[in-house]
């Protein structure tokens, strides 16, 4: 898994690539915590290059979403979730916790 972070004026973009499983989820968790601990709660996660997400990965995203939405201070937006990943997410009823965009620009532009 690779993580690239860009800080914009009104949100942060995190581009993730590779697999998000029990082995890599803690690394992502750390990076996202760095961002939220800096008081930045508007996140765009570009998942175009992510080809596998297990429940351990989803929990990281969901915990981050909870933190960001608290006090209405922000939100995690997902971009380009691959169909199979999206399907598994919906299957366990977690799809509704995220707004999913087709391209990064629209997600960034929505903040």
């Amino acid at each position: 898994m690779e993580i690239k972070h860009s800080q914009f004026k009104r949100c942060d973009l995190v581009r993730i690539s590779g697999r998000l499983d029990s082995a890599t989820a803690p690394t992502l968790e750390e990076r996202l915590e760095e961002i939220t601990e800096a008081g930045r709660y508007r996140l765009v996660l570009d998942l175009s290059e992510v080809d596998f997400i297990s429940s351990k990965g989803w929990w990281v995203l969901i915990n981050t979403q909870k933190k960001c939405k608290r006090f209405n201070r922000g939100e995690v937006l997902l971009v380009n979730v691959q169909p199979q990943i999206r399907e598994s997410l919906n299957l366990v009823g977690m799809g509704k916790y995220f707004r999913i965009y087709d391209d990064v620009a629209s997600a960034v532009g929505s903040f």
Partner: protein
Amino acid sequence: MKSARRLFAGRYDSLNEIREFIAEAAQEAGLDSQGVYAIKLAVDEACCNIIDHAYGGENRGDIDCQVDVRSDGLLVTLIDQGKPFDPNKVPSPQIGKPLKEVKPRGVGLYLIKKMVDKMEYRTSAGQGNVMRLFKHKR
């Protein structure tokens, strides 16, 4: 009909190798890309549960993984020597809760069942805990 068996160390680092081992067999069994993803995800969740619950942590025991390519799909058998459990006593996750109330656990077993066509679990003193997952070809 091809079969293969490999022993993996019970730690998260093995998961990627395990998934690759499964994916190869799944392709050989003629599963489509959705099917391959489904069985990979089910096996990943099952192995993760073995590490977390059966062994109670990483590096406490191995995962014995067998694949059987059948004419109608792929059978995966996972064996561990850890603590047994009763899948029928695990409550289904509550789906559709408000975000605030969601607790980050309890969907693994549910996902496994949804991803495969058949899930069996039995435990015996001699053999250990055996989980069998079958994914039908479409």
